[in-house]
C-alpha cells in the first residue's frame, strides 16, 4: 500500500491554481523532490499533503486512510512536516525543543521518559549538534536552528517526511549531510520523503521522482533522471540553464549574464 496517495488533487490558494488533477503514489523508501519558482505554491501543496489545508478536489491518503479518518494524533504518528520558519516566541533549551517532537507518542499525562531523551540526544548527534543540548535556541545561528528543527522531526519518527526547504540556512557540508541523513531514513527505515528543494543538482542526486510546478496548475511528474533536463528546467525557472556532463554525471548550471 502506498504511504502517500493523491488522487485527482486540485489545490488552489487565493484563487491561484497550484496543481490540477495531481495523481501521486509514493511507496515506502521513495523520495520525491518538488521544484518550482518562488510563490508557485510549493509550501501550500506540501501543507495540503500534510493534511493541514483541505484540497479543493480530490483525496489525500496516508496508508490508505484519509486525514479525517486518522485524526490529528493518528496523522502525527504517520507524517511529519519540517516548517519553513521556526517560531521561537519563548526561550527554551535545544533539548526541550527537540523533545517536542515526541508529543504524539506520549499519552495525555505522560512526561518524556529517559528513552525519549536518549532519542533526542541521538537525533542531535545525527545532525551534528551533540554538544548543544543545553544551549538556548535563541543563541543558535540560522543553520544550527535549522538542524535543531531537523532533529525535532527525526524524533517524531514519521513514516512520511514532508520537508519544506530542508537545506535553508545550511552550509554545503550540512546540506549534503542532511540529504544523506534523510536518504538513509528512506533506505534503511523505509520512510518516504517529499522535499521542496531549490538546488536542482542535489534534487537530481537525492530524489527518485520529481514534481515540477509550472504555475497555473500545470505540473509534470516523473522519474528524476527522465524529467530533469535543461529545457524543462529553463522553462520551469524562466531562466536559461545548461547541462555539463562529467564522469557520467549531469550538472545543471545557470547561464550567467555576460
Amino acid at each position, binding site marked *: 500500500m502506498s504511504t502517500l496517495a493523491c488522487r485527482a488533487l486540485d489545490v488552489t490558494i487565493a484563487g491561484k491554481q497550484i496543481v490540477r488533477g495531481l495523481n501521486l503514489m509514493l511507496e515506502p523508501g521513495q523520495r520525491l523532490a518538488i521544484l518550482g519558482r518562488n510563490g508557485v505554491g510549493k509550501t501550500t501543496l506540501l*501543507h495540503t499533503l*500534510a493534511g*493541514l489545508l483541505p484540497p479543493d478536489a480530490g483525496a489525500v491518503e496516508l496508508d490508505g486512510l484519509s486525514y479525517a479518518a486518522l485524526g*490529528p*494524533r493518528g*496523522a*502525527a*504518528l504517520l*507524517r*511529519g*512536516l519540517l*516548517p519553513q*520558519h*521556526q*517560531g*521561537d*516566541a*519563548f*526561550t*527554551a*533549551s*535545544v*533539548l*526541550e*525543543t527537540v*523533545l*517536542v*517532537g515526541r*508529543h*504524539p507518542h*506520549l499519552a*495525555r499525562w505522560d*512526561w*518524556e521518559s529517559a528513552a525519549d*531523551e536518549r532519542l533526542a540526544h541521538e537525533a542531535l548527534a545525527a545532525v551534528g549538534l551533540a*554538544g*548543544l*543540548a*543545553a*544551549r*538556548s535556541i535563541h*543563541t543558535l545561528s540560522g543553520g544550527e536552528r535549522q538542524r535543531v528543527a531537523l532533529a*525535532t522531526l527525526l524524533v*517524531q519518527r514519521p513514516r512520511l517526511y514532508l520537508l519544506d526547504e530542508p537545506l535553508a540556512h545550511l552550509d554545503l557540508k550540512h546540506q549534503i549531510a542532511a540529504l544523506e541523513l534523510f536518504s538513509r531514513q528512506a533506505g534503511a527505515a523505509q520512510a518516504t520523503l517529499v522535499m521542496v528543494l531549490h538546488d536542482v543538482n542535489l534534487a537530481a542526486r537525492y530524489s527518485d521522482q520529481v514534481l515540477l510546478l509550472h504555475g497555473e496548475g500545470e505540473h509534470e511528474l516523473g522519474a528524476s533522471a527522465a524529467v530533469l533536463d535543461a529545457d524543462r528546467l529553463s522553462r520551469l525557472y524562466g531562466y536559461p540553464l545548461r547541462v555539463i556532463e562529467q564522469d557520467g554525471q549531469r550538472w545543471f548550471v545557470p547561464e550567467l549574464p555576460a
Partner: protein
Amino acid sequence: MRAWRNRRQGAHLNRRRAFLVLLLLTITAATGLLLSLAVGSFTLAPGEVGLALIGRGDGMAQEVVRSLRLPRTLSVFACGGLLALAGALMQVLLRNPLADPYVLGISGGAAVGALAAMLLGVGASLGLGAAAFAGALLAMALVFGLAHGDGSWTQTRLLLTGVIVAAGCGAAVALMLSLAPEQQLRGMLFWLMGDASQAGDPRLPLLVLALGLAVALFFARDLNLLTRGPLLAATLGANVTRLRLLLYFLASLLTATAVTSVGSVGFVGLVVPHLVRLALGNDQRLLLPAATLAGAALLTLADTLARSVIAPQQLPVGVLTALIGVPVFLLLLARAPRVEPA
C-alpha cells in the same frame, strides 16, 4: 549536585523536579495564607490562628479569623492565582511574553460595568460584582466577535481588537470618573487600582480557579506545542483552532472572575508568569501551576501589607503588588539566563 549536573546537560524537566518545585511553592503559599490570617490590628500567633480555624480557642480570635480575615484572605488568594494563570494562558495564546490578562480588554469591560453601577448608586458588593462580571463578558464577546469576523482569528487581529476595545473602555472609565460626584470618586479609584476590601464570598473564585487550573493542566502539553507556533503544533497533533478558542475563553473567564472580586489588580498577571518562566523555564506543565501558586502567594502577601502597613488605613492592593513586584522582577531580569551556553 545532581540537579546541577542535570542543568549543565540541559536536562529538561521531569515529573519529580516539577513536584518538588510545586511542593515548595505550596508551602510558601500556605505560609502566606497563615501570615495573612495572623496579621492585622489584632495580631495572633500561628498557633492561635490554627485553633481559631478549627473553631477552638479564644472567641474573639475565632471571630476575627473566621468571619473577618478568612473570606478576604481566601478571595485575595484565589484572585492572585486566577490573574497569574490567566496571564500565563494569555501569553501562550498571543505567543507574546508581554501579554497580560487585561490586554484584550476584559478588565476594561469590568471597570466600565463596575463604575457604571457605582454611578447608578449600586453599593452592595453583589450588585457591583454582577455589573463588573457582565461588563467583562460583554468586552470578551465584543473582542471575540470582532476579531473572529472573517474567521481568520489571527494573533495580530485578536491583539489589535483587544487593545482597541481596552482603549475604548479606558475612555468610558475616564468619562465616568470626570462625571462622578466627589464622594464616589475615592471608591471608584480604589476599585480601579484593585481593592480587596470589597471582596465578597471566596468560594466562587476558588472554585473557578480549581476548575480553570484543572482544564489548563489537561491541555498543558498541547499548550507547549502552541508556544512553538501553530504550524508545528498542528503537524504534531494539536487541534490549534479549538485550543485557541479554549485558551481565549478560559483566560477571559478567569480574568473576569478575578476583577469582579477584587478589581483591576495590575501587575500580577503580567509579571508572575514571566518571573516563573525566568526561574523555571517554559514548560507549561510546571509553569501553569507554579504561576498560579506564586500569584496567589504574592497577592496574599501584598494584601496583608496593604491592610497593615499604615493601619488602620488601607492601601489599594494593586499598588503594593507593583511596589513588591517591580524590584523582584528587575533583579531576576538582571540575573544570568537560565539556559547558559555549554
